[in-house]
Structures are given as structure tokens and as C-alpha cells.
């Protein structure tokens, strides 16, 4: 990706990401909304930044997570925090609700997409404002409110697990178990996934971002240990 607008006189737009974050899974449970991501930012196929917090708290009752270009994620966090701060100047105690952030982000994404210079992200906004709120804003600016959201490879590998083990009235612990199971599968199947994940949830009491945790993995299968089926090049 070359930025040579001064040389060629033509403006180039970012059309492929450089440092990327992995899948995001978000589920509504009986008391609020739970979100999970891994803590990896990849530089192409290299697992470069392994301890990144990709869950941003935008306001007291809103979290923002995304998968895709990480610098765009950081920029969006700045933009959304700007809105929250600028609400202070009116002295009226009115703060944007999670829905306001979701819609704002949708308009922003759509505007940038129209200029063929998108925010290279699948965005997830989760919040609790009298009721649970969960929405996806994709790279085109499509805005969809939903009870569960998966981005990236999670859309392919995890929907079956979510479909079988989750419903929107389950408990927080049940929802956490479902997400942990999903990331276990992702770590096995997605080349850009990581085994350290981070969960966060929003409920009536506010936002809670948990410490990163390692998913359970099992590697001591007989097939790996004894390699009985492999033909070794020793002969």
C-alpha cells in the first residue's frame, strides 16, 4: 500500500488492512450483553501483538469491539469518546445512549464507504440502557440490531455452537461457557486466532471488563504423540 499522492497527484485509499484483530462474538443473556474477543493483533500471518485489549469502554453503559484493521478501531474509539465528552458542554446531564453510538457509527461507516475509503472494520456495539442493546455495523455501514453477533471466522465455525447451547434468556455463566467453547474451536481452526481471550459484559450495574484468560486446549492426543498414521522420511 503506497501513499504517493504527492508523486502521482492521485489520492490512494486504504483498501487492505495491515494490523488486524480477530473474531468477535457477542451474546445477549438474561441480565445484559456479553462480548468476547481474543487478545491478538496479527501482522498478516505473523502473531505480532499478543496481549492487546480490544474491548473499549465508550461510556458508563456501552462497550465497543471490532474485528479488522486495528488502527481504524483506535480511531473509532477516539471518535466515539469525542461525542461522549462533547455532551458535557451542554450541562444538561444527557449522555448518548448505546443506540446513539450505534447509529452514529453506522452513518460514519456509510459516509466513508461512499468515498471508497472505508473503516476496515466489523463493529459491534453492546450496551444496557433500560434494556439490552447489541448491534453490528459492518464495513459498508449496514446497521443491524441482533441478539447475537459473530464476526470473522466465528461466523463460520461458531454459529452451530451458539445455536445449540445458547438462548437469549440464559444466565451469564452459561453465555460465558458458550463463548469460551467457541474460542476453543476457533483456536483450533482459524489460523489467525489466539488462545488468550477476554470477556466483558454490560448490565444494569454498568460495564465489567474481565482479565484475559487462556482457553483450554488439548494437544496430547495419541495421534499427535505417536504419529502412527504418518510416513516418516527416515528410510
Amino acid at each position, binding site marked *: 500500500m503506497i501513499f504517493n499522492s504527492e508523486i502521482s497527484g492521485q489520492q490512494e485509499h486504504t483498501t487492505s488492512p495491515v494490523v488486524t484483530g480477530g473474531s468477535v462474538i457477542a451474546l445477549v443473556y438474561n441480565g445484559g450483553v456479553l462480548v468476547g474477543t481474543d487478545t491478538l493483533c496479527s501482522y498478516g500471518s505473523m502473531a505480532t501483538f499478543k496481549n492487546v485489549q480490544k474491548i473499549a469502554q465508550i461510556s458508563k453503559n456501552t462497550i465497543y469491539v471490532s474485528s479488522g484493521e486495528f488502527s481504524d478501531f483506535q480511531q473509532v474509539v477516539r471518535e466515539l469518546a469525542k461525542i461522549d465528552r462533547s455532551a458535557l458542554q451542554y*450541562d*444538561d446531564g*444527557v449522555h448518548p445512549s448505546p*443506540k*446513539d453510538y450505534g*447509529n*452514529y457509527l453506522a*452513518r460514519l461507516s456509510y459516509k466513508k464507504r461512499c468515498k471508497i475509503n472505508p473503516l476496515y472494520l466489523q463493529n459491534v456495539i453492546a450496551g444496557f440502557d433500560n434494556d439490552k442493546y447489541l448491534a453490528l455495523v459492518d464495513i459498508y455501514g449496514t446497521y443491524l440490531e441482533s441478539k447475537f453477533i459473530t464476526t470473522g471466522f466465528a461466523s463460520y465455525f461458531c454459529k452451530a455452537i451458539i445455536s445449540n447451547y445458547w438462548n437469549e434468556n440464559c444466565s451469564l455463566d452459561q453465555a460465558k461457557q458458550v463463548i469460551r467453547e467457541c474460542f476453543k474451536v476457533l483456536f483450533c481452526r482459524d489460523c489467525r486466532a489466539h488462545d488468550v481471550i477476554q470477556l466483558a459484559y454490560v448490565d444494569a450495574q454498568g460495564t465489567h471488563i474481565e482479565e484475559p484468560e487462556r482457553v483450554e486446549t488439548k494437544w496430547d492426543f495419541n495421534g499427535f504423540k505417536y504419529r502412527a498414521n504418518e510416513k516418516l522420511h527416515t528410510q
Partner: protein
Amino acid sequence: MLKHLYDTDCVTWSPQGKLFQVEYAMEAVKQGSICLGLKSSDYVVLCSLKRQPSELAGYQEKQFKIDDHMAIAIAGLTADARVLCKYMRTECLEYKYTYESHHPVGRLVFKVAEKSQHKTQSGAKRPYGVGLLVAGIDPNGVHLFETCPSGNYYEYKCQAIGSRSQAARTYFESWFHLFEKSTLEQLVLHGLSAIKKAIMEDEELNEKNVEVGILGKNQKFLHLNAQELKDYITKLEAFNPNSQIQQE
């Protein structure tokens, strides 16, 4: 009084610390016909007296819907009011486009006040000659604001502006403690009673010269139609605020 030495423009202070041009602009508001607003815990009601320039003309409307959750009543220069009304409507539309929710009321009044203040600090501009009563509902509750040409704004439980509004305010002072718990019907009747205090001796309230707008937590802004106004004006005869006290 050497007022004439200091009242040519907005950029001249008087020795007493007054800006006479701004004060003169407030006088324009007092020349407009009366409009008033009052609120309970669930509703805001705006009532105004419409003027008819001549027998051949229609009555000048004084209440305008800004958005589903907000409306204004004006007193003063109608042309200036149109400008502010258009500004408020545009702001509400843009907010709705970006956030998909209603513009917080206090915030819009603040923006109008900023705009008004701007006109009081320039040599080449004049203040807006109109006062607005802004009624609105937002997550913070039910609101009634007054804006002035000076750029100040205040929140009220009930307020009347325009010509002979003092009579209406005196009525409010006696009865405003009942408004919080009033029903919508009681609120409208209080509003009409207050307007009645402010009309001239030979004038009469009828469905043509009075305008009533209501706004509620589950009620988008609505103008009462001619039949509803007639019914309320008829009920006015029998209306006695004292009976409301006995209910509580």
C-alpha cells in the same frame, strides 16, 4: 435620561451597564399577543391568542411543531420566529439522521440561545425580536423553556409572555401548585383560564382566536381542532380550580 446617547447599537454599553438595543428587542416580545405554557408531570400545554390583522385576513398562527417531541409558541416578530423555527427543525432532523433519536430539548434551547447571543455582540447585527416558549419531552422529563432576544433562557413550570401576560402570570402564581398532578383536561382549562385573564374587556375567547397545543410522554405534538376547542371553552364556564384542591 440620556438614553439616546447609548442606544444606537449593540456594541455600546450604557454607564449603568445596560445594552439598550437588547432591552428594546425585549420590548418587541411584549408587543406580541399573549402565549403561555404550563406543564404537569406527563404533559405540556401551550395556549396562545391569535391576532387577526383585519376582518378580511386569517388569524396569525403562533404555535409550530419542531419535531414529534417538541413545539414552540412565539411572541414578537413573526418573521424572526420563522428563522428560529427553521433552525430548530433543521437541527432536530440532523440529530435524528445521525443518532436515530430525538434531540434533547435543553440542548436545542441552548443552541438557540447561543445563536441569539451572537446577534447581541456585533455592530452590524440586531437581536432577534421574538421570544419563544419551547415545550418538549425527552428522557430527562417534561420541559418548558423560555428564550429571550438577549440570549438568555430559563426553564419554567409555567410561563406567559406577550402583551398583558402579567395577568396570566398572576393567575399562575395562585394555582401552579396544582399543575404537577393535573390531568390533561385540567391543564388545558387552567391555560385557557389564564388566557381569559389577559384578554381585553370587549374580546371573547372562541375557537378561532385561541390556539392550544398539547405534548405528552406518549403524545406527539397535537393542535386541538376547532370542535375540541369549542368543547373546552364551553367547559371553561364551569371550571373551578378550587374543586381540584378538594380532590387531593
